[in-house]
């Protein structure tokens, strides 16, 4: 039967409204329990 996904979506940072934003570029870990700190995403520094 699955489960209520609201808290999983919330922990992923996926909003309920239609305003989408990308989440995989800052994805910490597949599990909320191992996602307790933010990770450094890719970035670019001009010379």
């Amino acid at each position: 039967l699955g489960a209520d996904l609201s808290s999983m979506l919330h922990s992923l940072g996926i909003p309920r409204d239609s305003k989408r934003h990308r989440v995989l570029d800052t994805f910490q870990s597949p599990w909320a329990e191992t996602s307790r700190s933010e990770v450094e995403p890719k970035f670019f520094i001009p010379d």
Partner: protein
Amino acid sequence: TNTERYYLVFTEWVKLLQRVEGDDISTIVFLKQMKDKGVLSKTDQLIEFIKAALELSIFSFKESDPTGEVFTAIDALGKMIIKLLVVQDFTEMTRADYLNLVFPVIALVFSKDHEQENTTFNERPHFRLLSNFLFEWETIRGHKFIKVRNVVTRKELLDFDTEFYNIFSSYLQSAQPIAFPGFSFAWVTLISHRMFLPTMLRLPNNAGWKNLMLLLIDLLKFLDKYTDKNEVSNAISVVYKGALRVFLGISNDMPEFLIENHLELMNNLPPTYFQLKNVILSAIPKKMMLPNPYDPTLSLEDIAACKEPPKVFYDLIAEFSTLKKPVDNYLRIPSNSLLKTIISNTYRNEYELKNGIGYDYLSVDNNIVRAIVIHVGIEVGSEYQRMSSSAVFNTKSAYYTLLFNLIHDGTVELQYQVIQAMVEQLRYPNVHTYWFIFALRNMFVSEEWGDQLLEVQEIILRNLLERIIVNRPHTWGISVIFTQLITSKEINLLDLPFVKKLPEVRNLLSPL
């Protein structure tokens, strides 16, 4: 010994990186000296060096104070390997050759650590090395490798970029959970890594999609194998949760990937994973607004999106190469003998054990059934664009009669599989959703079934209920057809004998 000498040189490298910045010229000079002074002048030496450095790094991890810096050596190794990938002179071997030399060495050290008895295998340093490869490569590839000053090298690296990810992907495939269960959690973390997954989704021309699908299928196969409907081990249950979360992320960032690859995902999804099934099939194109599916006055005909065929990425021909001809011939001119050929080819030669709801094995090849159903959908879509809606939205059309007859002449299992595949096509507003709603609605009340009608109604209702009683999300198409059935004046679901007989089902339906 040679190994000890390699340890010394590697240790110097680790120390160097603690004193100068990662892009300092001395790091290049160090590597150059390794080449010039005969440490890395031959490929045999490269193999021995990486083996020694990796073993030392893993040993260093295991011996380090767990509260301190445990990855110093492994981080240094990751940087060295990728730096060599970038700066070496690749006249005698290509970058692909180099990587295809490095990964097997890593695989061998990894396998020994994992498989050897009485070892304290820990996936973390192995994970860290691969995570670092992704980081180091990402650092150099920004803005089309603009940081690489040499224009020729820059172009070479840009041309190599896709191949880098595909080689990395192949390595991950060989390290999949069925082969290395002690690496399972690290593996799921790697396929969803922020510097791997979004990149694979976005490579030019969807160049990463094929390999990404292979990895996701590996994951689904692992889950399928070890999900027993009576009992799921805690560890597998946690893997599942992680998989679900990853699919939710993909659905958010790139729903097109799930939309266009849904067939292969359905072919490999464990049959009891209804919520994950719904998550995958509920992916909708970005910016699409969904009309209210519960509106009883909803007219699919008036929705522009319902005229559009959904995109498909997979190669359907491969799936049902033997059947394509008979199916296409039947769609042109239906005949009983073609139908018999088609039906007989849907049966397997051997039973396949499958943990389904209400069944433990399959005698029908559901991949083939799915391929037939979706092929019908694709043909419907293209004829609809060419001709008119009356040509396809017609219970006398070959499209409808093929599916009707498969159900009419098939075993209960085949009936279930065909209807299940049709229900899978009820997704976001598109011509497949539209047509399959038409087909299922008509089948639900068709007098052509004769005394088979109740059986067919039961299977259709079961397939819809399976998808709608689970927690959300639910697909738009299923919500639409369900609303139509509930509000229809022709049908009263509560009057159906098989509903009356089952209080659980009756109690589910009557409030609706």
